[in-house]
C-alpha cells in the first residue's frame, strides 16, 4: 500500500522536479525576453508602464537599441554606480543579473515590442520658454524629439517627465555622464551644465508638447 503511494505521488513529483531543474534557457529572442522580464515586472509593471512612486520609468515600446545601451551602461557602471543616483543604484544590480549571452538583447527586444506608453505630465514647466532651450537638444534628439540612433539619442517624447528631470539633474551633478568611456553621457552632461532646475522643467514641458 505504502509502496503504491510512493509510486503514485513520488514519481510525478520526481518528473516535475526534474523539469523544474532543467537549466537550459529558452533560445535568444522574445521567449527568453519575456521570461527575463519577470524580474523587471515588480518595478516597471506587467505592461512596462512604470511606477513613479518608486522612480521606475515607463519603458514599453522604447527602441531596442536604447534599452540595450542603458542596460549595458548599468552593467559597466556608467549608470547606477553613484551614491547620489538612488533609482539607478536600484537598477544596476538588476541589470547585472542579465549575465548570459543574449540576455540583454532578448529582454530589450521584448520590451521594445510592447505597446508604447506615453505617461501623463507631472511637472509644470513653461513650454514656451523651454522651446528656445530645446534648440540645443534638437541637434541630437531631433526637432520632433523622436531621437537619433546614430547619435545614441533616445526618443525623449516617450519618457516620463519626472524621469527626464531626474536624469538632467544627474547629468548636471555628475551622477551620470562623468565616467570615462561614457561617450554619449558626456555629451549630455556638457549640455546640462548650463541649465537651472527651472530651465530643465521648461524644456521638458516643451518636449511634452511634441507628442
Amino acid at each position: 500500500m505504502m509502496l503504491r503511494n510512493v509510486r503514485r505521488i513520488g514519481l510525478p513529483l520526481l518528473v516535475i522536479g526534474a523539469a523544474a531543474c532543467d537549466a537550459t534557457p529558452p533560445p535568444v529572442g522574445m521567449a527568453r525576453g519575456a521570461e527575463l522580464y519577470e524580474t523587471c515586472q515588480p518595478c516597471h509593471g506587467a505592461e512596462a508602464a512604470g511606477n513613479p512612486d518608486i522612480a521606475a520609468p515607463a519603458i514599453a515600446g522604447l527602441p531596442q537599441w536604447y534599452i540595450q545601451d542603458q542596460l549595458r551602461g548599468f552593467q559597466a557602471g556608467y549608470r547606477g554606480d553613484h551614491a547620489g543616483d538612488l533609482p539607478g543604484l536600484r537598477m544596476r544590480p538588476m541589470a547585472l543579473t542579465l549575465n548570459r549571452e543574449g540576455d540583454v538583447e532578448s529582454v530589450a527586444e521584448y520590451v521594445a515590442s510592447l505597446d508604447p506608453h506615453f505617461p501623463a505630465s507631472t511637472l509644470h514647466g513653461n513650454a514656451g520658454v523651454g522651446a528656445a532651450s530645446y534648440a540645443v537638444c534638437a541637434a541630437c534628439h531631433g526637432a520632433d524629439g523622436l531621437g537619433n540612433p546614430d547619435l545614441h539619442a533616445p526618443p525623449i517624447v516617450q519618457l516620463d517627465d519626472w524621469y527626464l528631470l531626474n536624469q538632467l539633474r544627474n547629468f548636471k551633478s555628475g551622477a551620470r555622464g562623468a565616467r570615462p568611456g561614457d561617450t554619449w553621457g558626456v555629451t549630455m552632461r556638457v549640455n546640462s551644465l548650463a541649465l537651472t532646475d527651472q530651465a530643465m522643467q521648461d524644456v521638458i514641458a516643451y518636449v511634452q508638447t511634441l507628442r
Partner: protein
Amino acid sequence: MLERFLVQASTYASDIDGLINLVAVLAGFWFLLAEAMFFWLIWKFRARPGKKSQYLTGKEKHVSRWITIPHALVLVCDVFIIIGSVRVWYNVKQVLPEADSTIRIIGQQWAWTFQHPGADNELDTADDIFTVEDLHVEVEKTYHFKLESRDVLHDFSVPVFRLKQDALPGRSITGWFRPTMTGEFGIQCAEICGIGHGIMAGRIHIEDANTHAAWISSASVATTP
C-alpha cells in the same frame, strides 16, 4: 575550527567563533547522546514474539529520571552558554572602543553606499569620499560606523569580521570593528530586502597605512553626491 573555512579578520571574530563552537559542542554532545539512546531503546525494546508492549505513564521515578537528570544537566550547559553569550555581547555590542575613524554606511535597495571621512578624518565635511559597493579601511585601526537605511530593513554583514548589524529606516545605528588583516573580502545584506536582496553585495578593502593613504589621495571628488 571555523577559521579553517572563513578567515577571522576582526578583533572580535575569534570571540564569536568561540561562542559558536561552545554551542556546537554542547548541543552536539546532547544531540548525539539523545539520538544514540533513542535508537538503542528502539533496538532493545523491539517487537518480539509473545511479548506484549507496556504503556508507560512517565510518573514512575525510575522512568521520569531519564528526563529530569538530562534536563538538569542541559540547564547547567545553558548556564555556560549564557555566560559566554553575555561576555561576547558585552564586548562586541555594549563596549564602544575609542575610534580612530568614523564611516557612514547606507543601505538601500539594492546597494551599499559608503561615506569615508577623507583626508581630514572628519565625517560630514567637504572632503568626504562616497563610494558605492566598495568600502576602504585601514588595518589595525578602530572604526565606528553609523549604519542607516534609505528604504527598508537591511543588514550589514561582513562574514570575515563575524559582523552583522540590522539597518533600520529612520535610525542611525552605531557599531564598531577593528580589522586585523589586509585583503579584499565580501560584504552582503543579511536581511531579506526585496527582489534584489540576493545580489546586494559589496567589498571591503582592508589596506595597510600607505595603501590607504594613497587611496584617500586618489579618490575622486566626483563621487560626492
